[in-house]
């Protein structure tokens, strides 16, 4: 029973990271109807930027974090201008292929610069964690859950209760109509990419002390996050978060009770199961192309 509680805690912590990246997926998907296959690389680049500032340059953690986020905002903007925006009027296949190209480009550029050895980033807190009854609460996991909770709350407030958030929603639902109403659509899309890059970067930075900072972390996280969005219901914010948490828990229990080497395979099995039996996910509605 103690083990179960401990695993549940760990699973929710990892799941919170998947949820953050999944949120980035969903935001871009809703704004552009495109799945950004480089979303995971945003996390990877965020973690490496943190290594650059905090480890290589030995800046204090707080400043490194701010600097890394500035870098991520810039990356999001460049990504939009270089990859998505020129293709915005083409069908979805070229855009998908271009984002896959971008993902390959980002991960291998970092590989060329940093080499294949994983980098180590220490945790944020001096105290490694606290013992709460039978469960040991690792401080980094607590931090991840806390930040995810705050960001999800912020996300809700931003999209539902601010004018800018409403404009973003309008853009995602009907670009032409939004433009006719005077909403600067190009700026809204730019903002969406910057925001998603920030979310991805935060997820990468938070998870870095738990996993190693490696080239593969991006694709691993992206696959889980994508599976999370399908489990939750494609394009649904609530679904992405719950899907992410569920996947983290499933995977942690799978690794503990079934097999460690195949840990990354459970997400795929769950994904295929959903695709066969409930492709619209937990919250999603089946969508058909409009004739």
């Amino acid at each position: 029973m103690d083990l179960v509680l401990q695993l549940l805690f760990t699973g929710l912590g990892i799941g919170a990271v998947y949820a953050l990246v999944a949120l980035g997926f969903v935001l871009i998907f809703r704004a552009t109807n495109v799945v950004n296959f480089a979303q995971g690389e945003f996390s990877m680049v965020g973690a490496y930027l943190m290594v650059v500032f905090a480890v290589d340059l030995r800046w204090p953690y707080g400043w490194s974090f701010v600097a890394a986020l500035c870098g991520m905002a810039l990356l999001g903007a460049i990504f939009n201008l270089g990859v998505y925006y020129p293709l915005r009027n083409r069908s979805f296949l070229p855009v998908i292929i271009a984002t896959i190209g971008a993902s390959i480009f980002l991960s291998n550029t970092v590989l060329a610069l940093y080499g294949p050895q994983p980098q180590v980033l220490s945790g944020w807190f001096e105290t490694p964690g606290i013992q709460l009854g039978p469960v040991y609460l690792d401080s980094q996991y607590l931090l991840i859950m806390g930040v995810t909770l705050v960001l999800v709350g912020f996300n809700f407030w931003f999209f539902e209760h601010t004018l800018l958030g409403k404009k973003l929603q309008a853009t995602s639902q009907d670009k032409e109509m939004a433009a006719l109403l005077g909403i600067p659509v190009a700026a809204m899309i730019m903002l969406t990419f910057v925001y998603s890059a920030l979310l991805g970067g935060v997820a990468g930075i938070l998870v870095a002390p738990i996993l190693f900072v490696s080239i593969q972390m991006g694709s691993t996280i992206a696959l889980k996050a994508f599976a999370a969005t399908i489990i939750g219901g494609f394009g649904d914010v609530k679904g992405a978060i719950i899907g992410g948490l569920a996947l983290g828990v499933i995977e942690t229990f799978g690794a503990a009770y079934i097999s460690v080497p195949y840990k990354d395979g459970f997400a795929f099995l769950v994904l295929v199961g959903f695709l066969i039996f409930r492709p619209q996910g937990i919250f999603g509605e089946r969508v058909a192309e409009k004739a």
Partner: protein
Amino acid sequence: MTSSLPARRVTGTLAYIALAALAVVAVGLLPLTDYMMHILVQTASYAIAVFGLTVVLGLCGQINLAQAAFFGFGAYAVGLGTADLHLNFWVALALGGGVALVMGAFLGMTTLRLGGHYLAMVTISFQQIVTLVMVNWIPVTHGPDGVGNIQRPPMFQSTHAFLGLCVLVMAVIGYVIWRLPRTPLGRSMRAIRDNELAAGVAGINVYRVKVAAFALSALLGGIGGGFFAGGFAYVSPDQFSFAESIVFMTMTLLGGVASPVGALIGTALLIVLPESLRFLKSVPGLYLAIYGLSIILIIRYRPEGIWGFVQHRMRRWFVPAPFLGAALELTLVPSKDDAPIALGVHHLSKHFGGLKAVDDISFSVRRGEVHALIGPNGSGKTTTLNVLSGIYAETSGRIVLCGRDVTRLPPYARTAAGMGRTFQNIRLFRSMPALENVIIGAEHPGNDIGSGHAALVERARAALAFVGLEARAQEPVTGFSYGHQRLIEIARALAGNPSLLLLDEPAAGLNSTEKQGLRDLLRRIAAKGLTILIIDHDMTLVTEVAERITVLNFGRRIADGVAADVLRQPDVIAAYLGTEPDAPDRA
């Protein structure tokens, strides 16, 4: 019918055979170094796998990011089969191809009903799993050590002979892929790539064709992998990683995504270039970073690839010969059963969440009549048509076509049962000439027009002649005016020999002359005994052609009957023009 098309085909085939034979003899006889032979074996075996991507991505427009995994199935089957199990090379190759085919079909069947990004992610996940298994299932796969001591077929032990075999196999498969686009299957794939919804309505079983394309691609990946293993005698998991899948895709895109010639060009370039630029390989990641950047740049600036660019330049040298002889008269044979009702709609509803777009509608379209479905914007007309043609699943209700319940049938089966339709926003296959668009409409089971390609061409010409565009049959469809594109859509539907024709706002965007032409065309179609259900806002057209009218407002039927009576009803007038002083309750 001209004889130049088959003649050109025979010439092309002979030229291909001559070139292929020359290539096989050349690699067999030329004094090549071991290094060069290995490069060539790698090129030939990779090219076979890249042909697979030509089919699935180039022809069918579906993404496959696990080609290296399927390549790996073939390679490991040949490796483990010949080295550990002492099987014959050909038996092991057949096993590998079979496993790749089954896995490809399974992946396709679970994913291809959904959007393309599902397929991309699922194939990436699948690729990762296969790599995990190759590395971790050590008792069988030998893990990271890989498989050595792989055997070749008895007759092709020397690298020289094996190279000749690889080139021969590549040439044979290349020929099939070269000819595939003009076969019924290849045409269906291209139609799906151009416009999936229209492909379904034109009578193509979209799901089955997509799964076939995906499975074929996986099979070719497996075969390529088998020859790769035979050529190098040693394989290890890193040769079949996700990175290699990306290499395969870059090869496809670089050379030209829709042609085996392009595939071969891309494969050869991306094998020879990194070999000659070895310094790139000294920095891990550098050459893949360049590939990633190339993908972005190709997609943005040259989506047709190298060969596509060349073909585009050469196109004017290959103007198709004009048809000799006049087109035949279009014969339309509506369903022979004598039910008086061509289409029965019974309590049909379609809800989107809380929105009742179509709410408990019933009406009957009588055989041989022109029936109009009218109503203000947003009244549910197009949704009704989409439910009738099977694009949307109904929430409740029944649809009976010529006495047969078609409620549960997918779009292509409704087409086979005698339904044809056009779209409000034109949905033609934009990469094809007008003639081929109409051929796809003619080419479905249940359309009895005789067998063979010549019969299809005759049928398509007759349908185009019926709408007055036969003289321009071989021109690209994108070159036609808006009004003419609408007519091509009608010709595509007519070529399928429907009993019931559904027209979604055919007059929208037409000028007055074109509208008169359309009215005459509709009358000529009706005179052939077809039943027509038309949606339109042009009341002049509707009153001129329609015998009966059903009026919708807010998803509900508010009137139904003989045209003149319906248009006099006060609530119909109210729905169109509004009433005063008390407007009807719109809640």
